């Protein structure tokens, strides 16, 4: 190539940067990938890869939570950011709720029939979260929706209370998932409430009064067998209790994550 060619070729960069198509990620792709990964992870027998190290980390994590001043070489950052993670989690729930209201896309499957909504969710989540129509007790079912919270696809059931809409997010209690120990009961004008029943952890988000969320929780607990496990605090109907299921191990990185964090910065770009 001659130097003249070279000079001309230099025009190509600006040309491309100015005019070439910049593709945006299609909506839903990240969620679909999340679902596919979950399915893959479930399918492959995990031997003990994911779980054995956790058992080692759990006591460490608990120690860190008890001794506030302790400084673990790699654990400190996580400990410091833990409450931030909790707020971030609540934030995501509120954002999901607000988004669904703003875009007027409250449900993906609008139906007041729990036997329609539950299978619809089950088909997309590989678990069947409890769905009820409490129309006769003041919480008619509006339908179901999928959303993406904390890097995971989550099923949302939507209820109506008077003029208000209530979103109920649910996860199986044994699912590795960061559930905050103390979450704000309200955030940016929305109210949050969480409880555990029937093997699921529920998070309700709404612009309705906290008392209404309390009532909805009571409906759920009455309809589901209450689970008593050492990991859960039992009096889930206490008005003051917001978080009932705490697993510190879920808030700490697994050794694999810790290992990855030690990689040179270029690995994270």
């Amino acid at each position, binding site marked *: 190539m001659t130097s003249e*060619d070279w000079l001309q070729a230099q025009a*190509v960069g600006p040309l491309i940067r100015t005019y*070439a*198509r910049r593709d945006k990620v299609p909506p839903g792709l990240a969620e*679909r*990938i999340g679902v596919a990964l979950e399915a893959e992870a479930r399918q492959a027998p995990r031997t003990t890869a*994911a779980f054995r190290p956790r058992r080692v980390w759990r006591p460490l994590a608990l120690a860190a939570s008890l001794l506030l001043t302790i400084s673990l070489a790699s654990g400190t950052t996580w400990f410091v950011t833990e409450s931030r993670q909790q707020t971030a989690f609540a934030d995501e729930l509120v954002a999901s709720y607000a988004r669904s209201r703003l875009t007027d896309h409250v449900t993906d499957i609008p139906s007041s029939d729990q036997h329609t909504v539950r299978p619809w969710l089950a088909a997309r989540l590989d678990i069947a979260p409890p769905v009820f129509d409490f129309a006769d007790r003041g919480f008619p079912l509006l339908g179901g929706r999928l959303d993406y919270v904390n890097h995971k696809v989550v099923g949302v059931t939507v209820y109506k209370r008077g003029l208000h809409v209530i979103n109920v997010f649910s996860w199986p209690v044994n699912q590795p998932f960061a559930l905050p120990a103390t979450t704000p009961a309200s955030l940016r004008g929305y109210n949050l409430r969480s409880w555990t029943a029937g093997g699921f952890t529920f998070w309700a988000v709404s612009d309705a009064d906290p008392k209404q969320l309390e009532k909805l929780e009571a409906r759920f607990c009455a309809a589901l067998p209450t689970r008593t496990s050492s990991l859960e605090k039992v009096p889930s109907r206490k008005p003051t209790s917001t978080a009932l299921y705490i697993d510190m191990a879920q808030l700490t990185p697994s050794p694999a994550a810790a290992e*990855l964090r030690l990689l*040179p910065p270029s*690995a994270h770009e």
Partner: protein
Amino acid sequence: MSNRISPREFERLALPHLEAAYSLARWLTHNETDAEDVVQNAYLRAYKYSSSFSGQNFRAWLLAIVRNAAYDWLRDNRMPELVSDIDVDELTDIADPAPLADDPETVLLRKADHGIVNDLLAGLPSHLREVLILRELQELSYREIADIIAVPIGTVMSRLSRARVQLLADGQRRLKEASHD
């Protein structure tokens, strides 16, 4: 790392690169739906083989898998367009940049628009198109590009310059044709 990481950890690492991955797949497959399939496939593949990640540069490692998935897809679904195992860099000059008009890049720059540039890019052979996309659009380093397409840095640079020359030549031909119409 001998064991597979959890899906969540993998997503935390891999989702930030989704746009780059999708863009690369889209430019290689010429098609939105196919690009989505390719990316999803590649992410799954990357997750399955995450233990083979050596810890150098996650983005390059991931994009290499996306690229391979895209070529696999092209191979399986049509496209004599590319894929042969001959070393494309051994081929002699493809473009004929000789009869350039006066100040051609200025003319092209003035007349260019989104449609023209996208067409020109799409019209390049994929081994030239991909280096331009990775370098000019995604602004990756030569080193990263070399890792992604698995060739030496020198090859990246020579492909880049050939890609630029050919894109310009194609552009001028197109403008000339347009002016004759």
